[in-house]
């Protein structure tokens, strides 16, 4: 429990190590955003038979840097109808949770620095998973207030969509995460990673369902395609950040990509065993970080793939998927896993528990689909 770093009291060296960890996580996130923007543009270009950015630096690697510098030298605008203070505050409200959420992600094993043992993880609070959920709950504010404070019609529509969408999908995401918490028996992210050692990854231990639900819900939470109704260009000009320019816009952009990296890192932690992987004798502290980054890269690629291949959902389809499919499915799966665990603790035969669970699931599914059909006929009649 907890980081061994704080076991022998806090002295200057401990403070220095913590400061170094903060700096490393910050730098990692910034660099990963630079990389992610380039990666997304290159992969999409490949999928669309284009070349993509190829002017700044080798393979266009410095293109994002050039774009960033350009953005920072532009004039920062404040619309006349805007609520000045909230308008200025909103970009920070969206970037701080994106940073903070990454703090609880374990990205390596336990190492020794200057005689102190420490986890390769910025913080390991006993309620780590709840901290992640809290940060994703707080992330709504940035988008919502940005649209409202702009004092303009389309950003407001974008932010109203965003708040409904993010609150709806949070429920499905929490239920999927709860399944992972259930197997580990702990809310600490490091304990969840330790519980998955030896390739008992939650991806298959829990059945694939919670993982898929998490993946879809996380895509919706970060407002990435195919759930990017918040910034649907055809309907809403630029969405919630239409009125933003210069650094404020850059902050939103940064937060969006940082959120993508963070939810991918959380998915790796909760379902793919985090930094677990084959142990190699040569440089043993390095390989967990490599496995972590490799898994992260797979996820980032999947997100880009989504964007390149899937058309945007309609708003009612988005709500139907969230409330009528994902939440019931995630809830049922959580109850099934809980029942199997209780059965194991009590010594019941697992196939009886599974059979009863499937029967209950069939009845629930029948009742739910009957209710949905009823709802549809009412809608048509009205």
């Amino acid at each position, binding site marked *: *429990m907890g980081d061994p770093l704080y076991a022998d009291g806090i002295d200057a060296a401990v403070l220095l190590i913590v400061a170094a960890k903060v700096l490393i996580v910050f730098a990692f996130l910034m660099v990963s955003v630079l990389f992610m923007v380039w990666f997304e543009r290159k992969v999409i270009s490949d999928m669309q038979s284009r070349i993509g950015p190829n002017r700044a630096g080798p393979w266009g690697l410095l293109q994002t840097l050039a774009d960033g510098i350009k953005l920072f030298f532009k004039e920062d605008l404040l619309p006349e109808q805007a*609520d000045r*203070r*909230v308008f200025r505050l909103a970009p920070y409200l969206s970037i701080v949770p994106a940073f903070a959420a990454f703090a609880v992600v374990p990205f390596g094993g336990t190492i020794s620095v200057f005689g102190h043992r420490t986890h390769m993880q910025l913080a390991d*609070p*006993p*309620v780590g998973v*709840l*901290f992640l*959920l*809290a940060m*994703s*709950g*707080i992330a*709504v*504010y940035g988008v*919502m*207030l940005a649209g*409202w404070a702009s004092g303009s019609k389309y950003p*407001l529509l974008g*932010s*109203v969509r965003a*708040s*409904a969408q993010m*609150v709806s999908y*949070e429920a499905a995401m929490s239920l999927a995460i709860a399944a992972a918490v259930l197997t580990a028996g702990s*809310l600490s992210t490091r304990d969840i990673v330790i519980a998955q050692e030896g390739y008992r990854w939650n991806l298959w231990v829990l059945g694939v369902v919670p993982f898929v639900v998490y993946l879809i819900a996380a895509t919706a939470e970060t407002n990435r395609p195919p759930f990017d109704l918040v910034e649907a260009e055809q309907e809403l000009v630029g969405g919630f950040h239409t009125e933003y320019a210069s650094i404020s816009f850059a902050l939103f952009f940064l937060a969006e990509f940082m959120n993508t990296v963070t939810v991918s890192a959380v998915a790796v932690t909760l379902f793919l065993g985090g930094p677990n992987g084959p142990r190699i004798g040569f440089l043993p502290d390095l390989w967990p970080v490599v496995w972590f980054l490799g898994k992260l890269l797979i996820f980032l690629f999947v997100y880009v793939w989504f964007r390149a291949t899937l058309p945007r959902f309609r708003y009612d389809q988005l709500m139907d998927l969230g409330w009528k499919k994902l939440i019931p499915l995630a809830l049922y799966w959580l109850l099934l896993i809980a029942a199997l665990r209780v059965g194991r603790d009590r010594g019941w035969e697992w196939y009886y528990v599974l059979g009863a669970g499937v029967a209950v699931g069939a009845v629930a599914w029948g009742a739910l689909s009957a209710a949905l059909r009823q709802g549809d*006929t*009412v*809608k048509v*009649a*009205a």
Partner: protein
Amino acid sequence: MDWIVFVVAAAAVLAGALGVVLSTHPVHSALMLVLTLFGIAVLFVAQEAHFLAAVQVIVYAGAIVVLFLFVIMLLGIDKSENLATERLPGQRPIAYLAGLGVIAAIFLLARTAWVSGAESVAGAADGPGSNVEKVASSLFTRYLLAFEMTSVLLVIAVVGAVVLARHSPSGGVRDAEET
């Protein structure tokens, strides 16, 4: 150290609470409420009640105030109000009285053994296991009935909301006819 944390968090709580009352704008009031909720979460962490702190942020700041803001934006009531007008006559003196009453009740609870039979103490709950385990075991054993009753209440509220918002098959509610 504990003292500094307490002073900073308490200042945030009080500043937020004053802001809720004194802002002329509903959206600013809601944001000030978020500040208060965060301050309370920090105070919970200082008492090693990690679970309560997380739930405070997830439920109150992450969902309830978001819904407040959602309703404010959707209904278009996001305009500054004149604090000098009184909608209900005599509202202010009654509010002052009620406020004083609440302060007195808190004082009685915190400083005397008169209400609950024992003086209140601050600090981490004792016993083995993490804070989350302690909360869970008392919630699901000793206070199970209260917990279940609360969830039944919430279900009743949800059902009520669905019934109110429902489009009835025979003609529908008035909104549905107009659209």
